[in-house]
């Protein structure tokens, strides 16, 4: 909302300048976004007539002009292509100050004296035009100002042709303060802030009574949507351009002048926040107004020229036959006031906020009027606003005659009385507030206050936002100023912070991933259909279980990601396109899916699981220029994930071959702890990667954060032995299909607790191994906690191990 200072001062007398007013408005909750002064920002510019134009002897693009600036003939060098003899243009005389700080001096330009400067629109900040100097006759014509009889006598101060300077305060109006969407409402705030008073004229306008007598065929069929409607006929009006004061006033808030009638409805709209509408009475069928819901199939062409299909959610103003306006939103084109209108019907109504809001939604149409009705127009201001319009119309069209009208009031909202305790103010605000102070602040805002302890506060019609005691506390607090609230010392109040297990687990997972040299990412939760499907399948989730938005803004952001892998792949593709050799990223974030169809019910929610997801692609090292460098492969990344799980204190995770769409066949695994599946890892298939236009191998890992039991807190200590361990290397031939995991478990179980370390150090199949077999070699360490082990003891355990491998895996100890 724009608040021009001259308009404000037309209503109130306050002893404060624009800066002080802006500051007070902000401190009272009307955030001032800017204060601007419109109007001339130059001095010393006069109207001048170009008498003669000659070429500059020393420059092709310059001319020498003889100019009449009112005080004799001047020589001016000009560079504009459009300068011609007879033209009237603004002349910056010697000593003139132009916007941007330029001062005009007598000067020589290429050897020729110049006693001033002919100005373009841009040089005077009147327009963006810098193609040539401003042709004043044409410019005034374009702006509809020629009718104002401004004479273009050379020497006249150019400012006089322009609107007087105006300071405009630009304010962000809070949702709950529709009264702030009118000059009067803002004036009331400013008045309260500075202890000012209404001007005599304002007082008269506010106290004026409206006499709605007469007779007019008006029916309120939907009294819920429209509890009050004032209709008034005015005869013998003359539609004409508005007088300059009205044009300037509307222009100062960025509104274009249309004609005197429309401009007056707008003026009242921006003063009281009460939308008015003027119909051309002769274009209404049957001199009647019906306020009703639209009927299915009805249409109306609104003022913006668009035909709009209506439905019964929309409240309309109709004549005897058809809708002529959408109530509270926009008038109809067919009944619009036009140049030949002589009889008009003024509408000044109160429409129910939710009804207007529904209509506005159904039609996808939001206007200055609908915004005010939706938020709540003062239900008591109608007669005052109507009277203001009619009084101004009488001034602008002295020959007009008031005709009959109706003021139908189906219901009047009951006055709201709210109790306020000073003690409640003190308790919430945190400083002592006396009942006297509270009363004074509320009365300054024109609340009517009676009684005491508690105060009985009657809420005025323009403050329908105030409904409960705490609303009044806010009125008191903002009137006193939040600046006056002291800072209480910070105290614990007996509440101490704890890091929750979930928080600790998440932080631990972050650190574990960072320690593996992975970059933390933060990717979109919303992904495309193809991204969602591909990444859902990786976890064996049917893409139909993906969670879709009902109202996506784009195809790219249509579905909630099943896991963060979708976004990581997008980030991976972006970085590779940007020339990165490697992408190593992880994200801890939520993935979403509907429960499997077996579980049904309408009140169900999608599952929301926090995943740790990671992608690795590209060289092993950030830098290496020897054989250590190479592309990261399955085993490199499996090592990363194993180290990650170890850091997360996952005990003996089991890796099982796993296959699902999107993984490279034979290169993906499911990871399980004793309790459950905790994650998936592997190399992605080139088919999946092609969906992101990624051409190099990418390895992925996803784990369910909550399944990573960061155990350790309650664990009993295990003391490492101090007697020297015995080391042995053994190798077994086992059938090719026996997994490492299998033989590892067999060996551990056969060896028992004396085996303290077992590590695979070679896998071989080829010449020397029997058909269908492979060789696995292990480095073993045996240790006794209390003594050095003997050779026989170790040998006996090794024999057990060999026997178990033979029995359980069909393998045998390899000869040395």
């Amino acid at each position, binding site marked *: 909302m724009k608040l021009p200072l001259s308009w404000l001062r037309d209503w109130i007398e306050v002893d404060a300048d624009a800066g002080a007013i802006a500051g007070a408005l902000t401190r009272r909750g009307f955030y001032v976004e800017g204060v601007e002064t419109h109007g001339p920002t130059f001095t010393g510019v006069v109207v001048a007539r170009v008498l003669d134009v000659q070429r500059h002897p020393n420059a092709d693009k310059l001319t020498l002009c003889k100019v009449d600036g009112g005080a004799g003939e001047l020589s001016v060098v000009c560079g504009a292509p459009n300068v011609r003899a007879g033209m009237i243009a603004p002349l910056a005389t010697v000593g003139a100050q132009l916007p941007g700080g330029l001062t005009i001096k007598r000067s020589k330009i290429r050897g020729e004296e110049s006693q001033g400067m002919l100005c373009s629109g841009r040089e005077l900040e009147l327009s963006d035009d810098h193609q040539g100097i401003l042709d004043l006759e044409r410019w005034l014509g374009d702006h509809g100002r020629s009718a104002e009889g401004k004479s273009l006598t050379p020497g006249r101060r150019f400012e006089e042709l322009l609107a007087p300077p105006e300071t405009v305060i630009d304010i962000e109006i809070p949702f709950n303060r529709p009264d702030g969407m009118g000059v009067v409402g803002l004036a009331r705030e400013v008045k309260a802030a500075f202890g000012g008073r209404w001007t005599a004229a304002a007082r008269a306008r506010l106290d004026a009574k409206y006499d709605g007598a007469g007779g007019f065929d008006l029916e309120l069929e939907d009294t819920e949507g429209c509890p009050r409607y004032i209709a008034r006929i005015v005869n013998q009006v003359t539609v004409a351009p508005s007088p300059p004061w009205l044009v300037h006033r509307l222009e100062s808030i960025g509104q274009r002048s249309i004609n005197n009638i429309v401009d007056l409805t707008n003026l009242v709209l921006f003063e009281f926040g009460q939308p008015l509408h003027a119909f051309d009475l002769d274009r209404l069928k049957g001199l009647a107004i019906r306020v009703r819901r639209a009927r299915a199939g009805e249409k109306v062409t609104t003022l913006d020229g668009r035909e709009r299909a209506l439905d019964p959610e929309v409240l309309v103003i109709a004549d005897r036959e058809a809708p002529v306006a959408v109530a509270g939103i926009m008038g109809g084109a067919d009944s619009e006031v036009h140049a030949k209108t002589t009889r008009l019907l003024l509408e000044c109504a109160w429409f129910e906020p939710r009804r207007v809001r529904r209509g506005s939604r159904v039609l996808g149409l939001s206007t200055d009027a609908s915004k005010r009705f939706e938020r709540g127009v003062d239900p008591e201001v109608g007669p005052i606003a109507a009277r203001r319009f009619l009084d101004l119309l009488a001034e602008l069209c002295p020959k007009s005659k008031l005709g009959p009208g109706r003021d139908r009031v189906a219901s009047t909202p009951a006055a709201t009385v709210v109790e306020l305790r000073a003690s409640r103010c003190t308790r919430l605000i945190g400083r002592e507030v006396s009942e006297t102070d509270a009363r004074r602040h509320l009365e300054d805002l024109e609340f009517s206050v009676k009684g005491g302890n508690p105060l009985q506060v009657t809420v005025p019609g323009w403050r329908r936002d105030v409904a409960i005691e705490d609303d009044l506390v806010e009125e008191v*607090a903002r009137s006193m100023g939040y600046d006056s609230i002291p800072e209480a010392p910070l105290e614990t109040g007996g509440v101490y912070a704890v890091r929750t297990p979930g928080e600790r687990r998440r932080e631990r997972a972050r650190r574990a991933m960072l320690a593996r040299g992975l970059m933390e990412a933060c990717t979109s939760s919303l992904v495309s259909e193809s991204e969602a499907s591909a990444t859902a399948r990786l976890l064996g989730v049917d893409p139909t279980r993906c969670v879709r938005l009902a109202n996506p803004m784009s195809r790219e952001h249509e579905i909630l990601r099943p896991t963060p892998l979708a976004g990581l792949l997008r980030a991976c593709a972006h970085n590779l396109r940007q020339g990165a050799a490697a992408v*190593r990223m992880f994200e801890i974030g939520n993935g979403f899916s509907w429960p499997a169809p077996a579980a049904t019910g309408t009140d169900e929610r999608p599952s929301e699981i926090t995943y740790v997801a990671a992608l690795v692609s590209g060289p092993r090292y950030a830098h290496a220029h020897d054989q250590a460098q190479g592309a990261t492969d399955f085993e490199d990344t499996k090592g990363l994930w194993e180290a990650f799980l170890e850091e997360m204190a996952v005990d003996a995770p089991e890796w099982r071959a796993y296959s699902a769409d999107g993984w490279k066949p034979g290169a993906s695994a499911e990871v399980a702890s004793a309790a459950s599946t905790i994650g998936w890892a592997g190399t992605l298939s080139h088919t999946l990667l092609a969906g992101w236009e990624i051409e190099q191998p990418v390895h992925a890992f996803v784990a369910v954060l909550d399944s990573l039991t960061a155990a350790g807190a309650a664990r009993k200590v295990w003391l490492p032995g101090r007697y020297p361990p015995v080391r042995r290397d053994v190798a077994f031939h086992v059938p090719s299909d026996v997994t490492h995991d299998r033989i590892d478990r067999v060996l551990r179980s056969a060896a028992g607790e004396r085996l303290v370390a077992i590590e695979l150090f070679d896998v071989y199949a080829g010449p020397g191994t029997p058909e269908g077999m492979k060789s696995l070699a292990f480095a073993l360490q045996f240790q006794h906690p209390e003594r050095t082990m003997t050779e026989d003891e170790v040998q006996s355990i090794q024999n057990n191990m060999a026997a178990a491998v033979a029995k359980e895996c069909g393998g045998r100890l390899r000869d040395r």
Partner: protein
Amino acid sequence: MPLLKDGLPSEWETGDPGRFLATYVAQLAELGPLDPEVANATATYGEMIAGAPDPASLVVRASAAIGRERGDLTRALAELPQLPIEQRRTRGRALNLAKRLLESLERAKREEFARAAEARDAVDVTVPGRKPWVGRRHVLLQIFDELLDLFHGLGYSVYTSPEVESDTYNFGKLNFPPDHPARDAHDTYFVAPPAGRKPAPAGEELLLRTHTSPGWVRAMAERQPPLRLVFPGRVFRAEQIDASHMDQFHQIDGLYVDRNVSMADLKSTLNTFARSIYGAEVRTRLIPIYFPFVEPGAQLDVSCVICGGGGEMRDGDGVRRCSVCKGSGWLEVLGAGMVHPNVFRAVGYDPEKVTGFAFGMGIERIAMLRHGIPEIRLFLENDVRFLGQFA
């Protein structure tokens, strides 16, 4: 039996032991009067050891002299008992002296080889190393880390709540009436019901939370005051994406409910936050603002961190309006207020018994101001060159 059993191979070149062992000459001179034969043999071995061309031949030569099993001097020591008693003493002493001397020489020579070898292995230290990858925390999560540290210090624990919310938690219980214009500020993404299922009844529609405030409702419904909680998380708005708008971003809300919490407590908490995040010298102001879920409502502004609050920037010789605060000198950083009685009622608290304050802020804005990041889109793009710079 001669001291040098077989003589020494003639191809063994000799060297100067004094080069490796400064005390060699003096010690050898001590040996001469004692037993000239031992002294001669020692001198011969000494020169041979000193002349060893590489570590391997040093081993061969040293063991020929003092090797544990086959060394000539070792053998001579072993044969001592066969000598006449009067020679035994002096020879024994001489042999022991000689042995120690040659051992020292061998050590010195070996040391010399090791040093030479190290010198040969010298590297160009300017060649880049074999460097592992370095992980970095995402710039937004760094801001979260900082805020969580701060609020933990002030006694706030973390509470997490779902990103997919119901209308009632996101709006209804937070005192947004149905069809209220305040909902317009929250362009909402709704979740489509899964295929074959009926849409949820009004008020129960699923949506992507538009703010982290539904967390308060969940926390209060679950627990009893006093409560001091923060609610970090991701939120969503159905907006067209451009340089300054993203359809998802991050927020943190805070909530303190107790018997007599007031705006004075809110003010000190917010000022502590502002000084911690925006700098000790920052000025703040608290001004009224409307949110449906607080009453009174407040907004915290801090003096512009770019222009220092003057609203102007020096630009060469001119002065221009600060583009960050748009000349006002203030930045809006946070919304706050006293928890609305209707919100308390919605969770079964009695607004006469407890009061509380709440606040909420955007994380992206803090990061953008601090690092001069011009576009909000950069946060979710995850360009490693962008992310890698925030250590």
